[in-house]
């Protein structure tokens, strides 16, 4: 394999991104098609590269630092997925974004993000990976800020949260490099003792924060409202999940050996369960299409972390499979949300309704994706969730119960969303709403079809994409493809789904419309005040952190004033006191000067004659 090809996934989008910046503002359309063409070419190259193995090492700078890239099955897979989403969403953007401002910047960041993700995935050196990983912060910031004028606050929030997590990861990488004695990822295999566990936790924080797990999630719902929607579909829904879970899998499988006996495994599983439940609880009460989806984007990460945290093959396979499935259906859902926003002009569920008739294709795609995310057989979400359930049950039934409860609430919230947006009475001012343009429909349809394909013929992705990641040795000859699930579990899943459906019918009847179908949970006695506080962001770790930081800042300000006072006032006053004293002493009187000299002479004579 020539050097060109392993560089391509990084160099092509980065170069194209810089070129995109050169487009003028009024050339947005051209820029969009340029970007789509680049992503198409990139998809072709990624497809070609998939399944090949290559590595490249260049000496870079001093201190034994090497720029090393490694292409193998896992990285090829992530790259392929990223390229696919990149192409589809770029295509979607051509229609969705066409009347926005800053189009050249948007596409530039789009392409740069793609290039950075590829770089982070391909990197075989921890420092190189960190470089690409951190660079993503910049495009993340840029992407959010071009959304709307008031997006600055959200962008800062996203930047700070990701930055803090990346800082933790930097510490972890430092510790890992120190302990392993090398920066090359493919040469690091550390057993989990006390210190390496700490390093693992730091790295894990970086990985799950990138994926958007709690407590590093709180920027995502805000960004959902402020940032351009294709960004949501691309970055938090797809690329960041891919990247975060990729790195989590790398550290659990390669860099360290996570086994069920380590305390890290329950830690991951607990984080996963908490993320699933809390985020989905929040999703349930949202009244905005995009915000609701964004909480699901958080919640579903919980499943992946839970799956990988089980540290048993079936769980890991489930987690990774869920990663790719989630990227698909969540992009599809966001894209459907975008279609609704574009056509109906709002994403506020209270103002939507009855869009099924006007946007039938969007509705069908939404249904497929919603069924997938809720785990309805035979869609792909069902398969991956069943695998995760298997893994969780192997560890403890509590994890399983939490995951199942999450599933129930997911289904309930999507029933509510679908009902409120697409069924029910058409909203008064939406009579002229039409189906979305083809450029937006095609990506949705493709993804929806893939959801079904990955469900029905799950052997295809599992055998080709997921299971090779673990390798034959870890799988111990098992294969998880096909439909040989335990009947009890499937039955339980189905029962839960039916329960969710019944719950929805009851709630909708009680409230009189689809939007209020979850109100009985929202206003339940214990939950209501908690929800209230959560909506006011009292539980947002970022806001709490800001409060603490403000206190620290106040103290630091006081200390700083003190030091300033010492320098600016005390030091200056003392200096000037001396100076004016000296000025006063220099009266210009020769007599005075002579007396000083005489005194000096006497002292010096005394000193020398007495001293020696």
């Amino acid at each position: 394999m020539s050097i060109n090809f392993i560089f391509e996934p990084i160099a092509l989008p980065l170069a194209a991104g810089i070129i995109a910046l050169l487009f003028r503002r009024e050339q947005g359309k051209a820029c969009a098609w340029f970007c789509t063409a680049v992503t198409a070419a990139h998809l072709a190259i990624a497809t070609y590269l998939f399944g090949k193995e290559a590595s490249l090492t260049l000496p870079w700078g001093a201190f034994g630092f090497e720029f090393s890239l490694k292409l193998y099955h896992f990285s090829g897979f992530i790259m392929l997925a990223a390229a696919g989403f990149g192409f589809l969403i770029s295509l979607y953007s051509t229609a969705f974004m066409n009347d926005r401002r800053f189009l050249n910047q948007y596409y530039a960041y789009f392409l740069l993000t793609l290039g950075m993700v590829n770089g982070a995935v391909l990197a075989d050196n921890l420092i190189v990976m960190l470089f690409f990983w951190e660079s993503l912060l910049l495009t993340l910031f840029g992407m959010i800020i071009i959304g709307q004028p008031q997006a600055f606050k959200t962008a800062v929030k996203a930047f700070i949260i990701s930055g803090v997590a990346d800082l933790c990861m930097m510490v972890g990488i430092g510790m890992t490099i120190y302990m392993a004695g090398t920066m090359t990822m493919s040469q690091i295999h550390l057993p989990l003792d006390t210190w390496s566990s700490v390093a693992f936790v730091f790295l894990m924080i970086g990985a799950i924060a990138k994926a958007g797990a709690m407590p590093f999630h709180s920027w995502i719902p805000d960004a959902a409202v402020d940032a351009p929607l294709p960004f949501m579909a691309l970055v938090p829904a797809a690329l960041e999940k891919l990247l975060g879970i990729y790195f989590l899998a790398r550290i659990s499988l390669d860099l360290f050996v996570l086994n069920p006996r380590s305390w890290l495994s329950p830690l991951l599983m607990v984080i996963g369960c908490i993320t699933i439940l809390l985020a989905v609880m929040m999703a349930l009460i949202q009244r905005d299409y995009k915000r609701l989806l964004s909480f699901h984007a958080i919640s579903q990460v919980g499943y992946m972390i839970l799956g990988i945290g089980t540290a048993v093959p079936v769980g890991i396979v489930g987690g990774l499979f869920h990663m790719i499935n989630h990227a698909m259906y969540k992009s599809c859902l966001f894209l459907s949300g975008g279609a609704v926003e574009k056509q109906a002009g709002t994403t506020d569920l209270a103002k939507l309704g009855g869009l099924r008739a006007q946007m039938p294709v969007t509705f069908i795609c939404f249904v497929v994706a919603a069924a997938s995310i809720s785990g309805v057989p035979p869609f792909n979400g069902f398969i991956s969730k069943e695998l995760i359930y298997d893994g969780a049950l192997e560890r403890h039934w509590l994890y399983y119960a939490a995951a199942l409860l999450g599933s129930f609430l997911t289904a309930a919230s999507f029933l509510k969303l679908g009902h409120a947006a697409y069924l029910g009475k058409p909203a008064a001012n939406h009579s002229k709403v039409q189906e979305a343009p083809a450029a937006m429909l095609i990506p949705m349809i493709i993804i929806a079809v893939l959801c079904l394909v990955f469900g029905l013929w799950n052997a295809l992705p599992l055998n080709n994409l997921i299971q090779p990641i673990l390798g034959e040795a870890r799988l111990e000859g098992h294969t998880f493809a096909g439909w040989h699930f335990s009947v009890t579990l499937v039955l339980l899943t189905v029962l839960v789904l039916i329960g969710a459906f019944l719950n929805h019918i009851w709630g909708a009847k009680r409230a009189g419309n689809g939007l209020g179908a979850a109100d009985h949970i929202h206003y339940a006695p214990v939950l209501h005040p908690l929800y209230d506080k959560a909506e006011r962001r009292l539980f947002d770790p970022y806001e709490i952190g800001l409060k603490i930081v403000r206190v620290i800042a106040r103290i630091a300000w006081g200390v700083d004033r003190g030091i300033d006072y010492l320098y600016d006032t005390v030091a200056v006053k003392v200096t000037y006191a001396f100076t004016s004293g000296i000025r006063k002493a220099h009266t210009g009187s020769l007599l005075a000067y002579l007396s000083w000299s005489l005194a000096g002479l006497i002292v010096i004579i005394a000193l020398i004659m007495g001293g020696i």
Partner: protein
Amino acid sequence: MPVLLIIVPLLALLVLNLPWMRLMNRLALWVGLILCLIQFFLVLHSPSFFWEAPPLWLGRLFLFAPSLDYLSLVMFLAIAIVGASALLVCRYSIHDLLEPVKPGACSHKRFLVINLLILALTGMNGVVLANDLFSLYVFLEITAVASYILIVAEKGRDAFEGAFKYLVMSAVATALILAAIALLMLTAGDLSYANIKLAMSASSDSHIVLAAVAMLVVGLFIKGGLIPFHGWLPDAYSAAPAAVSVLLAGIVTKTTGVYTLIRIVLSVIGFSDTLENLLLLIGAASMLVGALAALGQSDFKRMLAYSSISQVGYMVLGLGAGTILGLAGSIFHLFNHAIFKSLLFVNAAAVEQQTGTRDMNRMGGIAEKMPVTGCTSIIAFLSTAGIPPLAGFWSKLIIIVALWQSGHIAYAVLAILASLLTLAYFLSMQRRVFFGKLAAGFENLKEANVWILIPACVLAAITIGVGIGIPWLFETFLLPIRSLL
């Protein structure tokens, strides 16, 4: 043959003043410049026939065989550079009254000033060459007398006052030095450095000798303008004509005070604990008091004068470390100081000439109108304050390292603090004079003419060159100092 450095200027002076040469007094400047340039190149190329040839008829004539070392060469170099600068400034700032006065009574003041400048330079060459206390005294007096007259060359109240203070304080110094010479003569029976050193080592605890040492050192302190013997210095420097300020601040007090002190300590007295402590104390006091006093000045030249006291403090501090490194730093700083302080006084001359005032409170934004002067003064002040990579940084660094190594950590810290003060007063000077908004009344200000820009640019180039070239100069400039101890 180095004795020619005294004889040739003397002959040149005599020729210039031959009656039928009077009308050619325009030549004086060029003669002076050529003398300085010859001296400059003699040091740089150091042809052995000049410096090392056995005394021929000259030696027999003058019975004088100076022993030259590295220190003398550095001084010759500094004298040549500063002397040339002063001559050029003289061409710029002293107006010859040839035209306004009747042809018969032409006053040709510039010619006289140039003659005196050459005289002072010759005197300093003599100070450097001297290897005997009495010759040293004679040449110190030549330099001093020439300086008194030069200070009052432009007349004016302040000039007379400054010159008078210098005269009186210098007379005290001279008396002390003479008394010390007499006492040492009594002890040693001879006055050459080597013989006195021998006699002193034989009777080092004699009270007579100690009293002589004390008086000698105090006399040189007065000449060098160290605290608390500095009373004359600000007045003399600020009242003197521009060219004379350059010469006085750049080299005269450094040669007659600091160089002589170093020479006497090295060749005659030798280091001892008491002497080191004394030097450290006086050096630190000068450094701090000079810097603090400079901070409170509003007269441009007066501020530079106090700054000069402060920098001399550094040199004495370096000497007080009593180590080779300290000595190297001291001499190196002496050289650097000669360059950058001359540069500052050259700039002061330009500013004074163009604006007609030295009051910094009335200036402002001059760099806009006088860019070359502004730039070179920034270079000079950065060098003075010890900002890398300019020359002043290295010499201060060496002095501080030397102090640290010899265990005088408190003094090293003081030196660093004084460096901050230096930065403070120079920043305030730059802000008040060169930066900021153009002060009222200076709208038609012009850059000074080429006579003063040449020395400014050359001196700035030397400062930068020495600073950047320090890795190369280290071998040729600093290491030879080892031979001195």
